[in-house]
């Protein structure tokens, strides 16, 4: 009797214990603490942030946006670079994380920042600085970056570095930059009787060319535009810039696209879609969709950054001879953007130094890492694209010469783009939120034959004003 009772009590205890264990386990393992950050091992012998990393330092850094297995050549180069880097810094472990799709998708990025789950070195767009700082996610690395740690610092385009600075403090290093231009499919241009070496330079020319290309039939579109996943708004902004317009006024508090230029952009798109039927029937496209179309010769031209070509060749099996590029039609301003790596706030000084050393080796050294064009050619990657190009002065001359020398693609296809530089213009504040709102303008224009253009613009204007007001 007594024994039975005892056993029962023990059982009850066991159940309680099991539950408690569950929770302890939950608290202990498999999760990251929201409080503390792990610090790099090894005490820094050199406390001066301005000094380069001591080669003896033993430290591990994690970094995202390593090329995925699908980008075999780029992954191979990454691994080679890590090996090479380890010759100088044998005790630094570079732990890459790869993303099979796009490295950065805004909702996922937001979640990552909220969770503070970014790796030590994390990939961002030029437009992300404000959001990262709102979440207290990036380290001020001004003290760590100088001509000893990044020798070519003086030759990096200050516009590019500017996007990484706030209040004079530097928060990251750039990996690539772009100025938007008009990417064309040379095969379709030739078939339509157009000259692929002189891409259309005005929006009227674009319209006329699109009409001719669409006349080829078989589901071919002349000109393509996005209208979903924030990319519609991004390109609407680019078109506004191309005609000298803006989406946010200089105060940064009011929408500025509901004007004559905005209407011109809207009317032109609407006319191409509905009067000429030269923009294809499938809309609600987002980044990646137009690339798929032009890679399969279903699209004549669209606004893009030059490095889209790399993407199309590698992931979509396109051939680079087939593409060419001109400056953005209109040519007043062009949207300039790019990508950086930022460094997570709160990691140890040695980790920061290791991160700066690695980023410098991989992305800001002419002739090395990303700029080792000889190797890129040997690996069958496109060489000869005008961008990304961070350089000025001697570095530019040296890098341009190397690009030309190892070019794997006809550089002259990009001559129009190179010879007619358009001033770059940065993206608006709260870019992703504004783009989301402007998606609706794009989708309205491209899917509704009877779209009320004035109403689309004024609705978007009031929504953007609201976005800008909530700070």
């Amino acid at each position, binding site marked *: 009797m007594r024994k039975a*009772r005892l056993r*029962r*009590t023990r*059982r*009850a*205890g066991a*159940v*309680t214990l*099991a*539950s408690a264990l*569950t*929770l302890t386990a939950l608290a202990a393992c498999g999760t990251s603490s929201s409080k503390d950050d792990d610090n790099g091992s090894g005490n820094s012998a050199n406390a001066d942030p301005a000094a380069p990393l001591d080669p003896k330092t033993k430290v591990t850094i994690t970094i995202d946006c390593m090329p995925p297995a699908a980008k075999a050549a780029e992954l191979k180069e990454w691994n080679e670079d890590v090996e090479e880097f380890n010759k100088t810094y044998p005790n630094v472990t570079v732990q890459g994380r790869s993303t099979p799709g796009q490295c950065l998708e*805004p*909702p996922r990025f*937001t*979640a990552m920042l909220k969770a503070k789950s970014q790796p030590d070195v994390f990939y961002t767009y030029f437009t992300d600085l404000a959001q990262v700082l*709102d979440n*207290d996610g990036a380290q001020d690395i001004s003290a760590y970056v100088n001509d000893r740690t990044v020798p070519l610092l003086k030759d990096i385009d200050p516009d590019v570095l500017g996007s990484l600075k706030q209040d004079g403090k530097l928060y990251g290093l750039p990996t690539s930059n772009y100025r938007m231009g008009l990417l064309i499919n040379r095969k379709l241009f030739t078939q339509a009787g157009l000259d692929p070496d002189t891409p259309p330079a005005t929006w009227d020319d674009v319209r006329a060319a699109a009409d001719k290309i669409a006349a080829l039939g078989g*589901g071919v579109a002349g000109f393509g535009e996005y*209208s*979903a*996943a*924030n990319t519609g708004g991004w390109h609407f902004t680019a078109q506004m810039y191309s005609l000298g317009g803006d989406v946010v006024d200089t105060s940064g508090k009011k929408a500025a696209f509901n004007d004559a230029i905005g209407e011109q952009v809207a009317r032109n798109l609407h006319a191409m879609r509905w009067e000429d039927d030269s923009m*294809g*029937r*499938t*809309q*609600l496209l*987002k980044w990646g969709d137009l690339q798929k179309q032009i890679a399969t010769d279903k699209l004549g031209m669209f606004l893009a950054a030059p490095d889209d070509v790399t993407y199309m060749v590698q992931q979509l099996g396109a051939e680079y001879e087939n593409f060419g590029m001109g400056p953005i039609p209109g040519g007043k301003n062009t949207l300039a953007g790019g990508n950086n790596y930022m460094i997570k706030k709160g990691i140890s000084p040695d980790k920061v130094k290791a991160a700066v050393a690695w980023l410098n080796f991989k992305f800001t050294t002419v002739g090395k890492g990303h700029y080792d064009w000889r190797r890129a050619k040997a690996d069958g990657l496109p060489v000869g694209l005008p961008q990304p190009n961070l350089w000025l002065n001697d570095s530019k001359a040296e890098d341009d010469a190397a690009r030309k020398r190892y070019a794997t693609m006809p550089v002259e296809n990009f001559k129009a783009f190179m010879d007619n530089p358009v001033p770059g213009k940065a993206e608006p504040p709260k870019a*992703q*939120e504004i783009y*989301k709102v402007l*998606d*609706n303008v794009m*989708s*309205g224009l*491209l*899917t*509704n034959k009877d*779209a009320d253009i004035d109403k*689309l613009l004024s*609705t978007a204007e*009031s*929504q953007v004003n*609201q*976005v800008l007001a*909530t*700070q």
Partner: protein
Amino acid sequence: MPAPTLVQDPTAKDRRPRLPRRTRAGAVRHPDAGLARAVRRNLTAHGFLIGAVLCFAFFSWYPIVREFLLAFQKTDNGHVSWVGWDNFVTVWNDPAFGQAWRNTLWFTVLALVLGFAVPFLTALVINEFRHGQGYLRLLVYLPVMLPPTASVLLFKYLYDPGYGMFNEVLAVFGLPAQQWLQDPDTAMLSVVVASTWMNMGGATLIYLAALQGVPGELYEAAELDGAGLLRKVWHVTIPQTRLVLLLMLLMQVIATMQVFIEPFLLTGGAGPEGSTTTVVYLIYQYAFNFNNYGAAAALGLLLLVLLAGFSAVYTRLSRSADD
């Protein structure tokens, strides 16, 4: 995630009389021993319960409370402040607010016409056959087993105005090509068709089960009165399955108003000119695109109040189904 069901009312009273717990073999016990036993019994019982209760506390009860708090708060760079009804005003003044409710309503109406009527008619038809019932049931239920992302992306492919299957099928019958998802007028309908295809299997099976319960004599009696096919359906089948129909209707409304993945993947969420922006998508957009949790919570509360109303009706009905 839990969903309302057809089974009896959750809150129904346990009707078994509660007898005082018997002590083992009816032995006479000292009062102290009784107390100790009660404590021990409760300890055991709570030990069994604690795991689930903690999960509910963390992932259900606390978030519910937080939803109410959030709706009246504003978060600025980690600083929380109380803002009264401001979030509701923000939500109300958003041009997308009216549109989202209209779209959700329209979606619900369409989902009722298609998502509710089609499975019922399907069940009605399948039930008449003396052959191949198993095969037809299998077909209808097949899509339910696919991962929803796969079905939705497949439909996106089928809907493509250029290379999609649907326009090709229309062409076979000499019908004009459609823009499907690409047109503000047909986008929502296309979303509902895809959603119905994906989800109708479950409802069809339930209706089939309900139809098997209709007594055959009633049909015979109706025939003696000279009733035709339609009148038999109207006067016998529908009244006999009325309760199941009503419950499914409410369930459909509750589920439909929460739809997310179909518009999100088919039309990027907002859709042509915002024509597939639903209330749930707007909540998502506030929270995860605009970082405005307050507005998301405020809009969520409005939806909650509405759906809780439906749920209450549902519970009442299913209680009467139990009796």
